[in-house]
């Protein structure tokens, strides 16, 4: 099993859970370690209970893991909820002035910090957090200098006095722990690497900038708002027009307008906002104007659980907008992939002049991951397809001298002229139209023309399928168990496979990234050779399982689902597989042990 170390920090919103989290993350990534951070929180600005998990180690960390090595409860509630998670070798650092420890498991080190004796708490309200930071790093075997730098950076804007006060408090905590607590048996290592740490939302926004997006608009909606925040903060440097719009209907239509005028245009939302965008997707398809919409899934239906993760929007994506039309739908596999997927899908939608959807979720959108900066490639291949941007470029010049925007072609793709070019005036319409863009309802609803235009548009489906790679199987082909997942469950399934293999059950993984086109035949080729197949997904009804069945008739041996708002942990999947192999059930719904 790979070496990792996980810290859990729990407290009320507003108590300062984020700051120590940020400092830990910075220190780990600067030591050349990988990390994964996930924050379980609620839809309130002050109060409630939040629980941040940061897991680090020298190898890739793909998920929050199963174990908390160090718990830092910032209030009694956090102590009461989480102490029971700790097992032998773990430790709990807490303010002994205000928090009473519960009963810990054998081998768990309870580390009380007499905060009011160590710091002047009338001056510094978050002294307990800073003391705990110092104490934690001492126990992890990290030199104090790293923390000094981290604090200096964190409080730089608040002035020299605040910086030196915090460094002073942290040093007291560090020295107190050195004198009074037992260090962890595994000191945090150091490597020569240097990773970037980012959220999926930041990754998708940066991916957009890399793809050449020039127009981004949104209406704030958790968990997608981080994309807007990055875009807004970097718009002027990146040369991107960023607008906050009155509602998501306005968002998608404004994005389509910008795209029609010739720029790459993107927007992001969550399930509720996406529902409002649905008619606009049909407009993009009918006008053949490419646009990319990101849906960051959260637990539904309706307002649902706005700060919790789910993979419950798949059928909304598949059914969005009425009528048949070509679309591309992709679910990024991890936070690095959130970056890479954006230039990829823009090339697809530009080439095939149709809407593209990126189906992300809260786990990736708001989670943070260490990523090799090489992954953040700001010079990706850009293919804008058959786009006419000036009068001299290969135009749709026809026999009659009139530009046919919707020329019937073998590929279904017609050269697209942007407004402003002489000789190419035309109307793009949401109504069915002929090759010139003239509404067929303005002459007579010509069945022959209607059929020809439907077939022209739908011919693009084959082109998209050929342009997108089929999924591949990871791990030994003849494994006992095949775990099938899609999108954000990649990391946790990967770790579950490793654990199963270590425990004598060989496992491989089929992770689906492109949902439309699905490449059903390639999937069947893989699954028809599999021994025991299980579909793992973060929703109630098995949305992907039902989709796969509808496209391929494939029925797996069992299902592993979770719909409590929290992500899978590796042991959930491992135990479910064992339960199903023993024949107890065909549907496992693991319980989430962390009370958040």
């Amino acid at each position, binding site marked *: 099993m790979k070496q990792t170390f996980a810290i859990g920090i729990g407290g009320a919103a507003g108590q300062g859970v984020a700051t120590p989290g940020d400092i830990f993350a910075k220190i780990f990534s600067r030591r050349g370690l990988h990390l994964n951070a996930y924050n379980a929180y609620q839809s309130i600005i002050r109060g409630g209970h939040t629980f941040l998990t940061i897991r680090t180690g020298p190898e890739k960390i793909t998920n929050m893991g199963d174990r908390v090595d160090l718990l830092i409860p910032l209030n009694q509630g956090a102590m009461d909820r989480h102490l029971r998670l700790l097992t032998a070798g773990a430790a709990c650092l807490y303010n002994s002035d205000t928090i009473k420890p519960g009963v810990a498991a054998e081998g768990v080190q309870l580390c009380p910090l007499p905060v009011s004796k160590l710091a002047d708490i009338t001056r510094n309200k978050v002294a307990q957090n800073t003391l705990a930071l110092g104490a934690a790093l001492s126990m992890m075997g990290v030199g104090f200098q790293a923390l000094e730098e981290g604090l200096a950076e964190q409080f730089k804007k608040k002035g020299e006095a605040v910086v030196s006060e915090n460094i002073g408090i942290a040093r007291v905590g560090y020295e107190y722990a050195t004198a009074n607590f037992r260090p962890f048996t595994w000191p945090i290592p150091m490597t020569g690497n240097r990773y970037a740490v980012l959220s999926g939302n930041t990754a998708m926004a940066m991916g957009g*900038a890399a793809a050449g997006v020039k127009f981004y608009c949104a209406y704030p909606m958790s968990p997608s708002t981080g994309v807007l925040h990055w875009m807004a903060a970097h718009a002027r440097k990146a*040369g991107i*027009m960023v607008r906050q719009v009155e509602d998501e209907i306005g968002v998608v239509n*404004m994005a389509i307008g910008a795209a029609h*005028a010739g720029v790459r*245009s993107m927007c992001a939302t969550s399930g509720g906002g996406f529902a409002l965008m649905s008619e606009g997707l049909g407009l993009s398809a009918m006008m053949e104007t490419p646009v990319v919409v990101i849906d960051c899934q959260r637990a539904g239906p309706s307002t649902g659980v706005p700060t919790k993760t789910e993979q419950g929007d798949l059928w909304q994506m598949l059914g969005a907008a009425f009528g048949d039309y070509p679309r591309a739908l992709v679910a990024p596999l991890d936070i690095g992939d959130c970056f890479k997927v954006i230039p990829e899908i823009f090339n697809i939608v530009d080439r095939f002049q149709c809407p593209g959807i990126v189906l992300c979720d809260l786990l990736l959108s708001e989670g943070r991951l260490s990523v090799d900066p090489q992954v953040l490639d700001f010079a990706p291949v850009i293919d804008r397809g058959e786009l006419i941007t000036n009068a001299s470029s290969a135009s749709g010049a026809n026999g009659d001298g009139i530009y046919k925007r919707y020329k019937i072609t073998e590929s279904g793709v017609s050269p697209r002229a942007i407004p402003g070019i002489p000789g190419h005036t035309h*109307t793009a*319409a949401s109504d069915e139209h002929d090759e010139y863009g003239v509404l067929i309802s303005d002459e007579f609803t010509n069945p022959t023309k209607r059929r020809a235009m439907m077939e022209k548009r739908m011919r693009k489906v084959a082109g998209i399928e050929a342009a997108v790679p089929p999924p591949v199987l990871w791990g030994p082909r003849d494994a006992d168990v095949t775990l099938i997942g899609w999108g954000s469950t990649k990391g946790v399934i990967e770790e579950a496979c490793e654990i199963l293999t270590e425990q004598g059950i060989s496992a491989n993984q089929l992770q689906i990234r492109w949902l439309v086109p699905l490449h059903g035949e390639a999937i069947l080729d893989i699954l028809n050779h599999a021994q025991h197949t299980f579909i793992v997904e973060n929703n109630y009804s098995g949305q992907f399982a039902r989709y796969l069945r509808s496209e391929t008739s494939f029925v797996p041996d069992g299902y592993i689902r979770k719909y409590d708002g929290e992500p899978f942990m590796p042991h959930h999947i491992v135990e479910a597989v064992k339960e199903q192999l023993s024949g107890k059930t065909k549907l496992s719904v693991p319980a989430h042990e962390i009370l958040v």
Partner: protein
Amino acid sequence: MVTALAATNHVAMADLKGKVEPDWCPGCGDFGVLAAVQKALVELQIPNHNVVTISGIGCSSNFPGFINTYGIHTLHGRALAVATGVKLANHDLTVLVTGGDGDGFGIGGNHFVHNMRRNVDLLYIVMDNQIYGLTTGQTSPTSRLGMKTKSMPFGNIEAPVNPISLALAAGATFVARGFSAEQKHLTDLIKQGIQHKGFSFLDVFSPCVTYNHDNTYQWFRPRVKKLEDDSGYDPADWMAAMGKSLLWGDEIPIGKFFERTDVPTLHGAEPVLDAGPLAHADMPIPGDVTRAFIEELR
């Protein structure tokens, strides 16, 4: 915004004729609006390839198909949202938005209010016939109290919206009303609206000869009074404009209610556009900028 004209290209009425003839009912007010828009573009000599005419859904929203410019026939109520995107991606284009009262004040009401406060530089012409025509005669947001329609057969019990007051309150920087039977006056308002830098709202009485038997040409003719005929009226005076907007009865004002030129346009207020339209911008971001983006994350 008016695009500079290439010296050799003369814009004539024939250049602006659409690929198909309008299919509005004979006598429909929209014919007059179409003719006035075409005349205004000829008088201003704006080449048709630099104009984008954008509409929603409804009888009047078929407009883009009947004029030879670039056009977008969008969804019901969404023309202004699409138009804002077009203008921000390429502010060198002249953007005209055309539609009806149901499209603009009903289903599109949210975009109407917000794009006026943004001062998007475009001309929004509403062909206001106080009825839903293409769905065969239902009450619209501007139908008068008591008006009987298929959807309110016992008479409308909801007060109509006042588009002029609403536009003034929402911050439109050019607010006018025309009458499709007053061609010269209407053409002049359209020209002014195109030339105005900012959101120009033009409500046009465009009678529906098939479904609205209340607000007919005969009903409007004796009532409409041109604000331009009142030498004491100052369209720079917002309070006066608000007062005039409330007049409805024996006297209904048409003409320019209000104009102010001291508010920056949306595209003018955004420094990202200083280097020119985004539609022609280079796609890759300079390497030193992208390196700084990554460095922030370490």
